[in-house]
């Protein structure tokens, strides 16, 4: 990590990430993750797939997420993904990815564009059916989808049957946190 004199704030505006348990679920603000979008340039799709494979970066199918170390990824749109990596090792994730893909892909820093809240617990669908139009009961355990929660565009990335991440715009972190808390209180 670069040696500089600036101190970061969490998306919720504190020094340390928040966490709270409501009924059977736990909500956690996650800050130790770096993000970059990766989009194949036209005609370079095969090349990107090969380079990603070589670098250990998964490129999951539509509406799916794939975990990995250090790189995980979830699908954004045709030939574009969000790459996830640990923040401590990948703070400048774009600079790390660029040489891996050269000019075959467009790579954009996204780490601080998003707030990530992880929600874990049994029967998550009881909470999320009050938040967004995603059928978690029927959804696979590696679902990655965009959805809307209280007028806020979000990505829902399911990590396991009982655990998922909600990515929302960083500027509305407090509003999203409040929506999650309210739904949890209502559901459980």
């Amino acid at each position, binding site marked *: 990590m*670069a040696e500089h004199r600036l101190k970061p704030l969490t998306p919720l505006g504190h020094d340390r990430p928040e966490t709270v348990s409501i009924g059977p679920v736990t909500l956690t603000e996650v800050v130790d993750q770096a993000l970059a979008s990766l989009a194949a340039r036209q005609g370079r799709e095969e090349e990107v797939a090969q380079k990603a494979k070589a670098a250990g970066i998964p490129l999951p199918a539509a509406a799916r997420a794939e975990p990995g170390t250090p790189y995980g990824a979830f699908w954004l749109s045709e030939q574009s993904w969000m790459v996830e990596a640990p923040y401590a090792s990948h703070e400048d994730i774009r600079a790390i990815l660029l040489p891996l893909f050269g000019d075959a892909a467009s790579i954009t820093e996204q780490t*601080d564009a998003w707030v990530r809240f992880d929600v874990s617990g049994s029967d998550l669908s009881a909470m999320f059916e*009050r938040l967004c139009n*995603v059928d978690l009961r*029927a959804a696979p355990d590696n679902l990655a989808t965009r959805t809307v929660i*209280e007028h806020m565009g979000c990505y829902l990335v399911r990590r396991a049957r009982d655990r998922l991440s909600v990515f929302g715009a960083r500027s509305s972190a407090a509003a999203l946190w409040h929506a999650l808390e*309210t739904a949890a209180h209502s559901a459980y």
Partner: protein
Amino acid sequence: MTQSNRIAGGQIDRTRTLSFTFDGVAYRGHPGDTLASALLANGVRLMGRSFKYHRPRGPISAGSEEPNALVELREGARREPNTRATVAELFDGLSADSQNRWPSLSFDAMSIKDRLSSFLTAGFYDTTFRWPASFWEKVYEPIIRKAAGLGAMSRLEDPDQYDKGFLHCDLLIIGAGPAGLAAALSAGRAGAQVILADEDFRMGGRLNAETHEVGGMTGAGWAVQAVSELSHMPNVRLMPRTTIIAAVDHGIYGAVERVSDHLAVPAPGKPRQILWRIYSRRAILAGGATERPIAFENNDRPGIMLAGALRAYANRWGVAVGRRAAIFTNNDDGLRTAADLKAKGVEVRVIDVRKGEEVVDSSGRLGLKSVTIRSGGRLETFPCEALGVSGGWNPNVNVASHHRGRPVWEPAIEAFVPGQGDIPGLAAAGAAAGRFSTRAALETGAAAAEEALSDLGLAVPARDLPQAEDGAYAIEPKWYVAGGKGRAWIDQQNDVTLKDVKLAHQENYTSVEHLKRYTTLGMATDQGKTANVLGLAVMAGLTGKSIPETGTTIYRPPYTPVAMGTLAGRSRGQEFKPKRLTPSHHWASEQGAVFVEVGMWLRAQWLPRPGETTWRESVDREVLQTRRSVGICDVTTLGKIDIQGRDAAAFLDKVYANNFASLAVGKCRYGLMLREDGIVYDDGTTARLGEHEYVMTTTTANAVLVFRNLEYARQCLYPDMDVQLISTTEAWAQFSVAGPNARRLLQKIVDQDISDAALPYMGCKEITVCGGLRARIFRISFSGELAYEIAVPTRYGDALIREMVAQGAEFDAVVYGTEALGVMRVEKGHVAGNELNGQSSALNMGLGKMVSRKKDSIGMVLSQREGMTDPDGYRLVGVKPVNSAEKLTAGSHFLDKGAAPVMANDLGWLTSVVYSPHLGSSIALGYLKKGDERRGARLRSVNLLAKTEVEVEIVSPHFFDPEGERLRG
């Protein structure tokens, strides 16, 4: 009071007693009661007053079709007007008041209108209240408006929480009577994802109100058993207290679940109600049927009910509405009521239309005392407290008609049934399909489920239905009793009588839509559930057309009325829309900043310092300090779009009106974006960070829209261009640093050289700050000052502004808000929101030369139309008051001296007004006809709203440093 009319039996819990009040009088009931059943048990029949004539009324039904027994439920901010006592679940401590009466329910002064009814027939508004001419608005209407409405709102904020949600299923079953339960059992056993919803708090539907057996046990008992089996199936979701309110497109249904209405107050954190959107692949309407009355004179007295309701009160709630009852029927089902009441010890007289008998009148001002019967030409009076009327049953076709499909007339039952396929994926079963026996309900319910299962590709289980009655339903049509002199009610709540329908016919309002609109038939809170078919049958009789030829009006959602709070859910008050906070929000809050809503964002508008008492003091200081030394402003809210790809430059040339291909790496350029109709859409600077990499900025307001349009251009217009887009608005905390000391301040922050040579005007660079944090810097200015925008990863935005303020102390650096930003951009003559109004061209803004005609950019062609290149058209100008002490007002219009204030003399208007502390005067931008030619002219700036005017001088819009020396310094 004692429960004088409570009899044996019923599905109420007599081991517990609930206390409640009605109009301040205390009563008792039991769990399982509705407010209406409990009041009837206590001998209370009078529960409301009608809308127009204030006639005394009691319930006519035992369900959601109730037109009469409407009360104000609960007190204070939870008061809920027009609540149907027939579905309000009793809870301990419930309090209700009657409504639409003064001073009391039994003595209502407004019932004088009943005496004047000859003057108040249908259409009376249109014909009556225009005499004399001027009296309508001044006299009649205020009186009418005061008398309007039924219940009263509390006028207090609703304290309860409402939720919204989304459910998905293979099969939605609407109604948990015998048909719905049979369907649910079949589908549930087959493993389908099933939602079974019923508006009642007790599932079983009509089985709860009947005495006949199902599968060798009581119908209600069988229902309990079926519900129990279903409740153990993980693939079945039982939703009692849930009304399907609407069928919308593609298998989506709206539903309202009343989570807490049976409680005194909702539990903490729990909603009162939830609005669900149910996404179903198939649906079954098993919502039963509603009985309809026969109209006869004075058929609206408390104690006169639908026969099936009388039976329901006896069987389900253990209530005899009267110890002596009459049954007036044209069908076999009415006879069943008579038999059930007799079995409970009620003295019953049956008046069967099919035997040539009819009820012709009734008596009893506040409650039924007797009915007059005509039988074999003789009139006789039968004293009774209750009369059950059955004119037949109407299948509840409503939801099946929400796509405007028309129901179909079924002569065998003299009623409409749902049209086939009116709503794709929805089938009707049981009484809703016109199949009235229990056996038929079970069979059609199971059959509908089986059909849905095979549609869905699921295995159909063997049919396993219990034994049940399969009685015949013979009916002879009878709509009204002819020959009466008084009034016979059709729509009780809205006081539409037989006579009103006849009058509508006489005046040629004979189409059903005209009938509805002329008489208000079916427009009351019950939406005519008991009245509509009767009304149109009467009209059919008058016109000589058949009932199906006459047709029905459109059944419109919602099925029953829905609380506004439920439809709004959590989006209200401060949570109406999410708040977006800037990276410096916490810091600015600590400074006591005043925030302003800019779209979803909250931005610091100004940051007052101790001693400052007006906003102008703060803003003037922020401007002067910036121009004198250096100011800092959070500009993160501007949209930022990352544009990459081999064709990125060519793409920018398409979406911007001015040239971008020539922009060098490491430079920024102001870009002008048009709509295809040639009007200016947005502006901003775009920086070329690399050979194939740009970052575009948009206005705050248009960030999302511009992104959408870029995707449109990329995918629909130029599909082979190699361009990738992604928003980075939130990824970077971006600050403007402006003023003569901007560079000196930033050089203390930035690790690299940012001298004029290293970073000239309109240059951009990737840098590090504060000892190594990666950042970006753009040398751009909207204030006319030497200025930069500096961006760091958002998590460091808070730290950066603190650092800049600390490092800026030696320069007396200031942080400024959006007001000062606005002052400086007007001083510099930059267009912004008020000028970018979606109605103005580049030419209007003085930017006409930016539109390159050498390339085919979006909007170029249509910006050349004659109306948009009119030399006499509006041009952006600067405006100063001749007397600098005078204040300008944005939105004022320009008039020539001496010109009358009429539109023909209008020359334009002031778009943006600020006070320029630099010039010591109010200044403005404006759009002025032939503005370029009027430089130096003196005009009037007129605000007719405030009746003020100011003499102004037209000047260049560039009030400040017109040569641009400062920003290049």
